[in-house]
């Protein structure tokens, strides 16, 4: 099972939540409340997403964040890569100079390659289709990833 860092998971929650309705603006606290996550941490993540051009903040009454990326062109990998490395070379901790290390690296590389291909092939729009298919949803149990 792939483990995502908290910031990555929060970013995916925010992007998917906002991309679901691009006319809607949500504040960091509204999203955080829905997913039962830290508002402060999410606010930082939203700023990073803003710098990447995926969300924009709207000022004034009823302001908040809204999705401004291209849902058809933006992939899960695009979002994940903003916060952590995927397929970043030899798995840390494996001693490459040993036969066991080389064999283990082959297996771990296979897992990395499949992870990379999967995240690269799923767009935000495809995720929205999956979300609509699986309604009614339970906000805290998407079951897709585990945060560490």
């Amino acid at each position, binding site marked *: 099972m792939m483990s995502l860092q908290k910031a990555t998971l929060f970013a995916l929650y925010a992007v998917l939540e906002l991309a679901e309705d691009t006319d809607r603006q949500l504040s960091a606290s509204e999203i955080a409340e829905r997913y039962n996550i830290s508002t402060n941490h999410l606010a930082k993540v939203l700023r990073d997403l803003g710098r990447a051009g995926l969300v924009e903040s709207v000022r004034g009454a009823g302001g908040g964040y809204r999705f401004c990326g291209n849902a058809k062109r933006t992939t899960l990998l695009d979002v994940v890569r903003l916060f952590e490395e995927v397929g970043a070379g030899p798995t840390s901790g494996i001693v490459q100079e040993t036969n066991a290390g080389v064999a283990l690296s082959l297996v771990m590389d296979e897992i990395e390659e499949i992870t990379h291909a999967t995240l690269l*092939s799923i*767009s935000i729009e*495809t995720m929205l*289709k999956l979300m609509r298919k699986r309604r009614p949803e339970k906000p805290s149990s998407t079951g897709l990833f585990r945060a560490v």
Partner: protein
Amino acid sequence: MVDAAQDTPGYNLVSIGEHKINIRPAVKDDLANVVALDDRTTGLRKPEYWDDLFTRYGNRKDSRFFLIAEEGDTLLGCIFGEVRSWEFNSVPCGWVGTVSVEPNLRMGGIGSILYKEICRCFRKAGVTKIRTMIPRDATDLMSFFRAQGMMAGPFIQLETDMDEGV
């Protein structure tokens, strides 16, 4: 006048914006255009392959399907697939061999129409599951099938180079 064949799986007339896209089974005369489309898409010209594929798929309407999308006389895309039964201990399901769309028309909905139409053919053939196999680095193609709702299935493809003497 509406052609009654349009209600038959494998035949459809669909509008995308101003474009009227006709879906129908491939015929022998389509092969030259299909070969040219494949050449533009993959950079490889394979007339013998397509001729053989048409011979095996083009004339079977019950379990093998080779469909094309066209506007007027212009070929826009093609798809082929077949029902396979009990391969790898799998219950009968529809396999999509490939889907190909004119490169400058991609992400315009033609591939999705072809996919939906071959699904109709598969359903009529009595199967409810559809599969395909994609090179891991064929990102666009994988994204296309993902957008149709496909997820990783219960099989993993394995391979090896054979050692000398094995």
